[in-house]
């Protein structure tokens, strides 16, 4: 059981190392990438099942007891996130087999993808705040290279903003960690939870704001999101998809972790700010998306908008005294993250297929995809409608639980905003649908279309496999919402009442 907590970090790391050794063999790297991703996914499933039946698991690295050594902790929330990382890793690894060009594969695309997964899984599993910083950097460095791999002008321009903003965020994070160590004298998150009770609330809130800005940049919340729509549409689609699915969510995860476990001294102040941020993020994101006319740019702005919903649950958690409502809000956030990662990655993958088939992502130049590729059209509609929150798809239930929590708390403004934004999301998804899929193909493009874009039947189906699987998962979540929602509730209960977490990390003494 204990080894399951370490394996999600070791497997992608080893995969990356071994496939770096096989640098010259493109075929070996492809296979290793696939096998590694599959192994990570399998381990992640076992981790979720194990944590569900045996409770929170903690591993003290090197055998150093809790507040001194580095601890890896898998509570239900972390396990779910690792599961999602495994699922996305596998989906993107399969997609990349057909979707990635030879040049990028030759220059280490697969090892980098696995280094990225290592960083992501590490960030989810660590129980030490400085260690979290290190995993963030592992993830960032891999993402920098993935973003710039290929060296096209647009990629480099996007990367400058991405790199700069993320490095500023890291510096702020490091500052926060330093001050936290200065005031509390420990870096273990469970120990910090205990020690921060004795720290002056003003000091703790000041540090909390540093963390809010640092994680806010990574999570792309208002007003810190500008790097995202400037960079996410520049790399190859497989890279965009894994970024869209996982990277900002690591920021959200870290935010939820620190604002449920560490900074709960002054929730009227901190969580009210988060509530404002959440509403403004939803609105600005969706308005940005409406102004765009390029497939991936629209989707990028929707990432921003959706982050608002995830953060909304966290904000509501801090503003209620009732445990049931607090758990419901957090469960809404967790459920939303699960739904969002699957759906958003899926939409990016669909945009990649459209790009491959027609050679453009401009909505004006696209068209006629629905009559030419009806299967693809259906596979776009499922995640698109789910994103907007139409029943019976997963997005509906994710929004439902957040709205329920909001109504219970009598926060009618944020509920109104959330509902209005989902209408605008629907509008924006329908824009993509009518422009890219429904309207007849523009005549000017008839010639290039006839050239058939050199997409062989086999690679088209290979691209379609992960898209179909992810769409099926979205639909299945919607049809059988119970088990997943129970899982989210379980995760939310552990976040709301961290006594299990503390016991697993620090032992029974406290």
């Amino acid at each position, binding site marked *: 059981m204990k080894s399951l907590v370490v394996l999600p970090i070791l497997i992608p790391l080893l995969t990356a190392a071994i496939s770096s050794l096989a640098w010259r063999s493109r075929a070996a790297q492809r296979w290793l990438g696939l096998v590694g991703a599959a192994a990570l996914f399998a381990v992640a499933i076992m981790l979720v099942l194990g944590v569900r039946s045996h409770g929170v698991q903690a591993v003290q690295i090197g055998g150093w007891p809790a507040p001194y050594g580095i601890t890896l902790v898998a509570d239900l929330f972390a396990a779910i996130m690792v599961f999602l990382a495994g699922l996305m890793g596998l989906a993107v690894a399969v997609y990349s087999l057909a979707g990635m060009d030879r040049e990028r594969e030759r220059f280490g695309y697969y090892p980098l993808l696995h280094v990225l997964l290592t960083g992501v899984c590490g960030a989810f599993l660590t129980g030490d705040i*400085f260690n979290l*910083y*290190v995993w963030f*950097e592992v993830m*960032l*460095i891999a993402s*920098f*290279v993935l973003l*710039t791999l290929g*060296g*096209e*002008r*647009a990629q*480099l*321009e*996007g*990367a*400058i*903003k991405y*790199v*700069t903003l993320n*490095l*500023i965020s*890291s*510096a702020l994070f*490091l*500052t926060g*960690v*330093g*001050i936290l*160590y*200065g005031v509390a004298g420990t*870096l273990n998150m469970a120990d910090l939870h205990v020690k921060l009770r004795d720290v002056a609330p003003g000091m703790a809130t000041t540090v909390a704001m540093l963390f809010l800005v640092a994680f806010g940049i990574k999570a792309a919340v208002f007003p810190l999101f500008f790097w995202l*729509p*400037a*960079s996410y*549409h*520049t790399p190859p689609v497989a890279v965009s998809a894994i970024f869209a699915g996982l990277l900002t969510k690591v920021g959200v995860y870290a935010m939820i972790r620190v604002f449920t476990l560490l900074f709960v001294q002054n929730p009227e102040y901190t969580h009210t700010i988060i509530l404002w941020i959440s509403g403004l993020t939803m609105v600005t994101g969706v308005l*940005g998306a409406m*102004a*765009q006319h390029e497939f991936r*740019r629209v989707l990028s*702005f929707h990432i921003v908008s959706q982050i608002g919903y995830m953060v909304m649950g966290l904000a509501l958690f801090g503003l209620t005294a009732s445990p049931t409502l607090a758990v419901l809000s957090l469960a809404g956030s967790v459920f939303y993250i699960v739904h969002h990662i699957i759906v958003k990655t899926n939409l990016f993958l669909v945009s990649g297929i459209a790009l491959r088939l027609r050679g453009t992502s401009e909505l004006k130049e696209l068209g006629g995809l629905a009559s030419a590729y009806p299967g693809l059209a259906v596979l776009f509609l499922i995640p698109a409608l789910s994103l907007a929150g139409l029943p019976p798809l997963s997005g509906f239930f994710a929004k439902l639980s957040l709205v329920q929590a909001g109504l219970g708390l009598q926060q009618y403004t944020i509920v109104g905003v959330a509902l209005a934004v989902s209408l605008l999301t629907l509008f924006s998804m329908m824009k993509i649908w009518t422009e890219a899929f429904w309207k007849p193909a523009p005549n000017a493009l008839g010639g290039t279309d006839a050239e058939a874009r050199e997409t062989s039947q086999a690679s088209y189906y290979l691209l379609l496999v992960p898209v179909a699987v992810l769409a099926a998962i979205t639909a299945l979540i919607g049809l059988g919402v119970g088990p997943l929602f129970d899982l989210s509730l379980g995760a939310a209960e552990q976040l709301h009442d961290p006594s299990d977490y503390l016991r697993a990390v620090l032992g029974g003494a406290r």
Partner: protein
Amino acid sequence: METVLAIVVGGLYASGIYLMLRRSLVKLVIGLVLLSHGANLLIFTIGGLTRAGAPIVAEGETHPAAPFADPLPQALILTAIVISFGVTAFAVVLLQRAYQAVGSDDLDKMKTTDT
């Protein structure tokens, strides 16, 4: 001593951010470097500036001799320095490639991917 270092840290942050707000790519990277130096010095200062021995446990003892320096901030800084070294190396290469691709080091000329 803390006061002096606090002022130095503040100065590093301020000049780092000022440089990043300029339009030149080179100044952007220097700004990032200064910012990470500022963060490292801050950890160093906040960890407590005491004149004390090394935290080495003598033979036959279970604790290090009484006034000893906290080794953890130094370990943190060391890690952070290594990371910022790697990241800066990447940033410099990125800067050079971007300069080649765009033909200018003016950040205002790199807006084609903005929305």
